[in-house]
């Protein structure tokens, strides 16, 4: 470490240290670049999409028209431009993915910390609930819940988020259990620190990186779940998403006429977005998960 580094603010050095490690991970950087591309697409979709995708004026071609110069990826069963829909679909995937993962991580973090820090009956109760939710089959339950709640983007976010926190909660709890036995927590208590101070100042900063890695991995799961639910016809029909496009492709017999331009591109984009988060999450986990540290 050089002397200049010491002059930097501590948090800047922390971020810098993390970035140095992350930069070395080819997987992580690939994921980050992919994510940046998708973020740009999501923001710029209205500008860069060649055709409108909502409303009657979106029927710009012949149904199931194959790719051409006007329609790079052909048209769907209503004659809507597929390429434009793909660009717009990025928004739903990222929105649902981020929000659901954020919700799941938040619930998981709170339950993990409370359960691990306070222990006893609270811990017992929360962990039994976690165990139960952990074995409830995810997608089947989401299907039922989504069907009962009705199709809307917020419901989809809720349905995915409410089931996705168990892994995070368990991981954070086990971290907190070991953290709270560490002497620095005891030292803080000996100095007169309150439970709140210890939780926010000592426990939180030590579990946040892990929660962050969990959230990134959670986004990939959430994007996949959204795609699955939408494909099954439980998505929000007022918004275009890639899963929804595949739903219509399947329903309206794209397979029977070999309309590959309708079937293949949405899946590639779902895979690419999920890959971005999976790669990044894997890289974060390798850097931040204390379990892996001694392996290097």
């Amino acid at each position, binding site marked *: 470490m050089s002397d200049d580094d010491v002059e930097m603010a501590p948090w800047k050095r922390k971020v810098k240290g993390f970035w140095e490690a992350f930069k070395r991970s080819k*997987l992580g950087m690939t994921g980050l670049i992919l994510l940046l591309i998708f973020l740009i697409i999501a923001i710029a979709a209205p500008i860069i999409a060649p055709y409108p995708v909502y409303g009657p004026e979106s029927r710009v071609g012949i149904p199931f028209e194959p790719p051409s110069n006007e329609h790079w990826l052909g048209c769907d069963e209503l004659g809507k431009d597929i390429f434009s829909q793909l660009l717009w679909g990025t928004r739903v995937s990222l929105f649902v993915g981020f929000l659901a993962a954020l919700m799941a991580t938040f619930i998981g973090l709170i339950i993990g910390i409370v359960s691990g820090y306070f222990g006893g009956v609270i811990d017992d109760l929360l962990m*039994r609930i976690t*165990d*139960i939710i*952990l*074995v*409830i*089959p*995810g*997608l*089947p*339950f989401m*299907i*039922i*819940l989504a*069907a*009962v*709640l009705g199709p809307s983007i917020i419901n989809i976010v809720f349905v995915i988020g409410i089931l996705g926190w168990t892994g995070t909660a368990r991981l954070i709890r086990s971290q907190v259990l070991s953290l709270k036995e560490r002497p620095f927590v005891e030292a803080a208590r000996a100095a007169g620190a309150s439970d709140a101070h210890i939780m926010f100042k000592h426990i939180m900063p030590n579990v946040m990186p892990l929660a962050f890695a969990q959230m990134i991995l959670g986004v*990939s799961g959430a994007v*996949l779940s959204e*795609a*699955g639910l939408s*494909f*099954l*016809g*439980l998505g929000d029909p007022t918004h275009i998403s890639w*899963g929804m496009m*595949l739903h219509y*492709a*399947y329903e309206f017999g794209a*397979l*029977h006429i*070999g309309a*590959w331009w309708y*079937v*293949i591109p*949405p*899946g590639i984009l*779902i*895979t690419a977005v*999920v*890959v971005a988060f*999976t*790669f990044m999450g*894997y890289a974060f986990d390798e850097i931040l998960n204390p*379990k*892996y540290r*001694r*392996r290097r």
Partner: protein
Amino acid sequence: MGMREYLIKRIIQGIVTIFVVISINFFLFRAMPGNPFMRFIESQPRGKVKEMVDIYIKLFGLDKPLWEQYLIYIKNLLMGKFGYSFRQVGVPVSKIIMERLPNTLILMGTATTLTIIIGIAFGVIAAGRRGELADISTVVVGLTLYSIPIFWLGLVFILVFGFWLGWFPLWGMITPGKYFSNPFEYAVDYLWHMTMPCTVLVLVSAGGWALITRNALLDVFTEDYILTAKAKGLDERTVFYKHALRNAMLPLVTMIALSFGFIASGAVLTETVFSWYGIGRLLYEGTMQHDYPVVQAAFFMIAICVIAANIIADILYAYLDPRVKY
């Protein structure tokens, strides 16, 4: 506490979980705003479905208060009475379930077994060649496979191997209208139909398995007892299989248990795409057709399978790890 108490404890936990699933099943359909169950019945035109209402009112006590309905519901479940389908009017749900269950068990059983074997094999290869091409490609390919939406891979397979190349049937479980002279012919046709869905399931899940196996092994490699085993002059195979793999199996068994829920999700999507008449597809069809008794029963069966598989995995863990204090 000995093994027997542990078993009792684990089974009690399982029963509690099943009880929670039953409650979710009940309240979701009866107590949610608007009571979806009654709403469906009331929305039906005159005809046979309306007649079902009387049967349901009698069977599940729909005119009674909610808590009483709940008790009746549990009692009926315990006696195996799932009610009658709304769509296939008058057909007991239990009959539909029993027709569908074997198909799911065959497909999922085969796919899961293959996944675990292939996944572990690749994980072992990757861990043994850490940092080499085989390892790096296992990580990259594994993560990518994990990221593919399973239903889409199904669609691509249908398009490529079914529609364009014509190697495999597009969907279904047996060739329609075909006459089978013996059970063997039937089995061959069944397996031929199963090839694509099974392959898709294995492809998507095996990547994750390979990664988990690899990481578990790499963790074990840093342990001192591996160094001891090497110092003892044991050959690499013995060190690897007797000392490393056996310990790496422990986290794997935990992961097997946790992945059953994931497998169930894969089942619903795969069965739907390939029109495989199993419980997963039944759940989907039921949801789409608002056939709530069928949905409830299908979800219940899936949950039971997952919970049972979990208990088995936990017992296996306790058997493998002498340190488990139950």
